[in-house]
């Protein structure tokens, strides 16, 4: 076991005890649980900031804690941990065996900013003349071609998007610390790791998968991640408005299972979290829009986790209407209204036509990592990372490669955090076993038995 401060243990600059791929909540939790045991950990994150999906959520079920209040301390703890190194805006291209270790090929994308000089003052952003739809705000807000990605981003460095940069040089002139590097090129590097934790996360499948919902025909047929931003304290509009024309909605509908439980779109499984986040969003919307009607069209309400059922019952008591029914079609009207054609299963199967201002499609959770094989893992039929041993739920079946969170299947935050801890445990178990030489200082079992334990 390694002990003492990371610096003393550093074999080489590019060797780590563990590399965690993905800086979302699962990856960060794994990294912290390993670093707290004095392992040296590298976290590699594809986005310019760590925090993953969770940092963009408004509040989280069933406790309604603000998501950023739970995520930021973990992000901050990881960023300040003496045993953790963060590499953001970096992809992992390949993981291959290298003797007893793993060799990872990484590409550090060009940020066009020298991170050793940038102080996150945002002066470059203030002078940048080009704005584009902000991916963090799900396209609803604007981001400048050079900017700090979002308010609580870690690290707080600017990043330039070359697709929108016109090369005017205004940022170069504005930067007091001379941190802009327009000649920066992507950099490939390799690192070695004793073990790897894959925490590559998920994305949602497209709202356009089901043509009968006509998502491409109206901006008010939205994804749940858009609703998270609409509800977030720092959301794009500062309040809940429908994205087509800024109307304050008075009728919102949720269509559950809109991208899951359907073999025909390639997602036969249930995405596990849609029922609960829809209920949560419905509750938050009814707080933000006290006079609005809120309807949830569902097949089964899957409130299975700790405290979930009570949360669901509270939502019903709040007046959110739950309709067991199949939404056959959503038709945008010329005036912007959305007509939902619903077969209400519990009301004689009658077909209703309901008007809504905003319709949220609960899309399916699909793995972000398309080819786990490149990273030394295999995938299941459903595309998520395979875990062949029922007794080691964090193990990919490949020596020293573990998985945590939604990379291994859809799941909520609590379950992701649990798995992250479990992956950290299995990785530290593995590393201990690998260092076959017995630690002379390793503790041995001590106890006092009174009354002879022998047979």
């Amino acid at each position: 076991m390694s002990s003492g401060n990371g610096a003393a243990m550093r074999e080489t600059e590019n060797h780590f005890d563990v590399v965690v791929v993905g800086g979302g909540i699962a990856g960060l939790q794994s990294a912290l649980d390993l670093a707290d045991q004095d392992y040296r950990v590298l976290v590699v994150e594809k986005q310019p900031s760590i925090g993953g999906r969770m940092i963009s959520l408004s509040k989280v079920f069933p406790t309604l804690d603000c998501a950023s209040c739970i995520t930021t301390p973990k992000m901050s703890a990881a960023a300040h941990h003496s045993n953790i190194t963060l590499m953001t805006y970096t992809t992992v291209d390949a993981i291959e065996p290298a003797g007893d270790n793993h060799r990872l090929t990484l590409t550090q994308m060009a940020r066009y900013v020298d991170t050793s000089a940038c102080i996150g003052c945002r002066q470059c952003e203030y002078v940048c003349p080009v704005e584009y739809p902000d991916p963090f705000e799900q396209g609803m807000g604007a981001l400048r071609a050079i900017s700090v990605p979002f308010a609580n981003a870690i690290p707080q460095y600017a990043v330039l998007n070359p697709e929108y940069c016109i090369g005017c040089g205004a940022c170069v002139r504005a930067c007091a610390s001379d941190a802009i590097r327009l000649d920066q090129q992507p950099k490939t590097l390799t690192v070695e790791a004793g073990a790897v934790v894959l925490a590559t996360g998920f994305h949602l499948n497209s709202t356009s998968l089901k043509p009968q919902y006509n998502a491409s025909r109206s901006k008010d047929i939205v994804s749940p991640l858009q609703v998270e931003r609409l509800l977030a304290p720092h959301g794009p509009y500062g309040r809940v408005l429908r994205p087509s024309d800024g109307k304050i909605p008075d009728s919102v509908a949720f269509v559950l299972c809109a991208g899951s439980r359907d073999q025909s779109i390639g997602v036969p499984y249930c995405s596990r979290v849609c029922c609960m986040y829809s209920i949560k969003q419905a509750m938050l919307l009814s707080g933000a829009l006290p006079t609005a009607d809120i309807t949830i069209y569902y097949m089964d309400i899957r409130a299975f986790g700790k405290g979930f059922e009570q949360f669901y019952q509270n939502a019903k008591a709040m007046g959110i209407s739950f309709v067991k029914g199949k939404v056959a079609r959503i038709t945008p009207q010329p005036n912007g209204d959305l007509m939902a054609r619903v077969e209400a299963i519990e009301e004689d199967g009658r077909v209703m036509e309901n008007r809504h201002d905003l319709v949220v499609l609960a899309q399916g959770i699909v793995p972000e990592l398309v080819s786990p094989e490149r990273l030394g893992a295999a995938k299941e039929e459903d595309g998520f990372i395979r875990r062949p041993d029922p007794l080691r739920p964090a193990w990919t079946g490949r020596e020293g490669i573990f998985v945590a969170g939604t990379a291994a299947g859809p799941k909520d935050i609590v379950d992701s955090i649990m798995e992250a801890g479990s992956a950290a445990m299995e990785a530290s178990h593995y590393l201990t076993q690998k260092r076959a030489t017995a630690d002379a200082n390793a503790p041995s079992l001590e106890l006092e038995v009174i009354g002879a334990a022998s047979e």
Partner: protein
Amino acid sequence: MAFEFEPKILVLATLACAYPGADAVGKAHLEYPSNVSILRVPSPALFPEDFFARAYARGIDGILIASCGSDCPYKGAYDKLAARIDRLVQRMKEGGLEIERMRLTAICTVCIKAFLKEVTQMDSRLRELGPVNRSAATEIWQASLRELQAGEIVQMARSAS
């Protein structure tokens, strides 16, 4: 606008139970009067009687001790606290301070309703009672202190014998 008396209410809330209980009220976005101020405390068993009396003397109109009750994480602390409050209330009675200004109760981490009930009841009762009699409270404070310090003499006399 007529001057309306706004009582100053102090809640001493235990770290293990009542303080998170009060947090739960806010998380549920339920409201109570803003003249209620909450201080967290590991266990209110640490306060001698003169501490409470001093608070009244300084102008606190009512004190709600929101304890853990039977869930107290400290051995025997609740019983000691209860005995202390009994003595204090007796002294308040004798010294001319309304005993409704002191209330010992138990609030759990999810006792949202109980918390709201306790603080709103105290608020409305204190509005009826009006401001605390600070000179009476000062008398009680000094008397409590004297007794505590006298305990020293009793104790020393005992160990000498």
